[in-house]
Every structure is written in C-alpha cells, then in structure tokens.
C-alpha cells in the first residue's frame, strides 16, 4: 500500500525571489527513510522530539513547507510525490493533524460535505443525499463521542483539545481512507479521551486499510495495538520491531536504545 524508499526531505529552503524569514538555509530533516506498509497493518513510528516524525507525516501529505530532495514514495502503486495535496487525499491518504486548524466561519457540515463529495467522486460513488450525509454524520460522530451538534459549528473553532483530536478521527471515519497517518493524535488527551480516540481508531481498522501512528509515548498503543513499531532518530528509522519494542522504549527511554 505504501512504499517509502530512501526518502530525503528538507525545510527552510527558499525559492528564488520568495520573501521569507530566517537565513533561507535548507535543513535536511529526513535522511533516508525506508518503510513498507501493507494493507491491514498498523505501524507505530516513535522517536524523540525533533527526530523527524511529524515531518514524515507532513511530507506524505504534501505540505508545501517541506521539500523532498530525493527518494521515492509509492502509494497504491502510484507515485505519491507527483500528486497534489488534494489528489493524495482523494486517493485515500488521510493525515490526522497534531494541531488541527481552526477555520472561522466554515462549518464542519459544509467542510465535510465538500470533502466527502470529493472522496466519493474519486471512488466512483454517487454524492450522498442530504439525509444520507446526516445519517453518516450521526453514526461517525457517535463512534468518537462527539455531539452531532458540532457539525453546525465552525471547523475546530472553540473546540477543546480533546474535541479537536476526536474531530480528526471523526473526519477519518467520514472519509474512510486507505491509509491514515495519525500525527501525535494522543498528545493533549486525558486518559478518557485517549481511550475513546483509541477505540475509535481500532473500530476503523480493516483488512483493506492501514494506519501509521506517530507518537512519542507508548500509552496510545495500549488502545491501538500495532503490528510493527519503528524508532525514528536523526531522520532515519534506526530500529524496527514488534509491540514489545514500544514497551522496551517506555522502560528504558530513547537514550538507552537510540
């Protein structure tokens, strides 16, 4: 489903004539990532702060802040890096944001209607009727314990930290992605919200989709049990293993392993 080969990416570089802050020097953050994710699998990517975890998520989604300098990413046999941000999403790549963005004045309903319509178009499905959309909204909101009324609120505006993260998983449920990359979905969650989010994600786990969890801590993996755990450090995957690797990291810390 996802095949990453020797991926290098940088931040901070500036196009000719582009105004910007800083000295414009490019800094390489990903220094040769290799990763294979197959349908039905859950991979956890762990690592210390600044190791490049979130950059990997951003690069997969096509965030224009980062520049891929070399390497290859295949998503469902297609050249992912050649696709625009929205094309990647329509093909079934979902990024759960570490910091979900507030969009004043844009309601969740309008936003999700537009997003779901694009996803369904890409799948060759008909646009949902208003009542089908509403029914789907209720069902998916219940999955993550969000009040259905939040659909009439502006996107993430005034949402608590926990609601924002639940809203990410709600959107994932609405869009039924082939591959979900969840970037520190557990950060800022209390234990109850963590359980709800974890169970929600687990309920969305299927044989034909895959999930990449990016996390600093082991605790999320109590609720979403991964098939593989990778440790990212200095922009490379330095260690891979099974579930037990996460427990070892928790016990010994990154210093003892990386």
């Amino acid at each position, binding site marked *: 489903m996802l095949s990453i080969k020797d991926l290098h990416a940088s931040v901070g570089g500036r196009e000719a004539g582009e105004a910007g802050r800083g000295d414009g020097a490019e800094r390489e953050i990903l220094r040769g990532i290799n990763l294979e994710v197959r349908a039905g699998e859950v991979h956890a990517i762990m690592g210390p702060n600044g190791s490049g975890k979130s950059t990997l998520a951003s690069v997969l989604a096509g965030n224009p802040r980062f520049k891929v300098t070399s390497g290859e990413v295949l998503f469902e046999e297609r050249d992912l890096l050649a696709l625009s941000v929205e094309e990647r999403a329509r093909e079934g790549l979902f990024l759960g944001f570490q910091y979900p*963005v507030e*969009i004043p*004045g844009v309601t969740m309903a309008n936003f999700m209607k*537009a997003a779901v319509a694009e996803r369904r178009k890409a799948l060759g499905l008909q646009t949902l009727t208003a009542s089908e959309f509403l029914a789907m909204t209720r069902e998916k909101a219940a999955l993550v314990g969000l009040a259905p009324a939040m659909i009439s609120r502006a996107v993430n505006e005034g949402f608590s930290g926990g609601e924002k993260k639940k809203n990410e998983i709600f*959107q994932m449920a609405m*869009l039924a992605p082939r591959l979900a990359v969840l970037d520190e979905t557990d950060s800022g969650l209390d234990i109850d919200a963590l359980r709800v989010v974890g169970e929600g994600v687990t309920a969305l786990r299927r044989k034909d989709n895959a999930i990449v969890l990016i996390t600093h801590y082991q605790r999320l993996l109590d609720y979403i049990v991964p098939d593989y755990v990778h440790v990212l450090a200095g922009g490379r995957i330095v260690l891979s293993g099974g579930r037990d690797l996460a427990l070892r990291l928790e016990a010994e810390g990154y210093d003892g392993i990386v």
Partner: protein
Amino acid sequence: MIFSNIPEVAADEVVAFEAGDHAAEPIVVKGGSGVIRSVKVVLGAGARLRLPVFVLGRGKLALTVDLAGAGAELHLYGLFIAAGMDADINVRVNHLASDTLSRQLVKGIATEAGEAGARNVDAEQGRGEFTGMIFVAKGVQRVDAQQYSRNIQLTPGARIVTRPQLEIYADDVKCSHGATVGGLDEEAIFYMRQRGVDEATARRMQLEGFVADIVSRCPTDDSRVEIAVRIDKLLTQ
C-alpha cells in the same frame, strides 16, 4: 426594493430610533460609479440597534451614529470589498449621553481585479479603507465602546488602509479598539486540501467564512441572499 428602511439617495439621510430593540435592514453601497452615501443614525434613550452596513463595489459609506440618549446601544457590523476598485467605510460614533454602549466590527477584503493585464492600471488595484472614530463627549458617564477592524489583503498589489481613532473628553469610559490586516490562513488551506477540497474552493470557503458573521447580521433572508449574491459576484470577477 429590499433596503427600504434607509432610502438609497446620495444626499444626507437621517434615521432615528426610539427605545427598544431594532434589527435594521442593511445599509448597502453597491457602487459601480463611485457613489458616496452619507447616513446619520440617531439613537434615543433606550434604543438598541443592530445595524449591518456594506460597501460592495466602488463607493464610500460615511456613517455617523449619535448615541443621544441614556442606555442607547449600537451594534454595528460592516463589510467592504475592494475588488479592483476603491471601497471605503467611514464611521463616526458619537457617545453624547451617559450609559451608552457601542460595538463595531468592520471587516474588509481588498483584491486586484481580473487577470494580470489589469494590474498595471492604478485604479484596478483594489484599495479598501476603514476610518473609524469613537467620540465621547465631555461630561458623559459610563461609556463602553469597542471597535475592531479585521482585514484580508488577498493579492500583493491590493491595499488595505485602516484608521481606528478615539477622541475622548470624559473620564468614566471603557474603550478598546484594534485592527488587523493579513492574508488567508495558509495552514487552513492546507488542512482543507488534505481533506480533498481543491485549493480554489478552500480559499473561497475561507473567504465566505470570513464574511459570514457580518452577512448573518442582516435581519431577513432576502437581504442576506441579496448581499451574498453581490459578494459572490465581486469575488468571482
């Protein structure tokens, strides 16, 4: 026509409101020929007015509101869109009586019109201007006034000018004002694109969101629809 509360003439107009709650139909300058409309609103004791105002096209609105009686309240919501032309809103709020309150939220969008060719012509640049004066007369007590100016400059050649001003001759006054000018939120654009919404639609949705809390203050469906259609036309050209 829809905007019947305040007849659309270029000369000075004066409208007075008595005690009670009033949700006025919007004052709209539709522009096109650089029309200047000058309106004076007088609020008597206990008159509480919600007033939406719009300059949508080449033109200028000069609005004066007198809070003339105790307990008068003004809730003003304004929007100007300068799409390849000048659009100005000029507001003067006079607190002439004690225990009066004013709230102003005026939003602006400036953008160059059309394609590259038009950008060489000065008049096509798009220049939006807000001038807002809060005046508090000598001797009045317990005045509460707020004024916020929020603006989006959509293209590099467009201009926003915002001038919030205070003139206060009394002591017991609570006053705050602020102004911001920025572009669209690129993080939000990325977020929406990541959900499959194309970039142009994402930008458009964000702009519609920006104007929504002004447009929604129009009291009737008819006026909201007419304003929305007009905005749509301006931002599409």
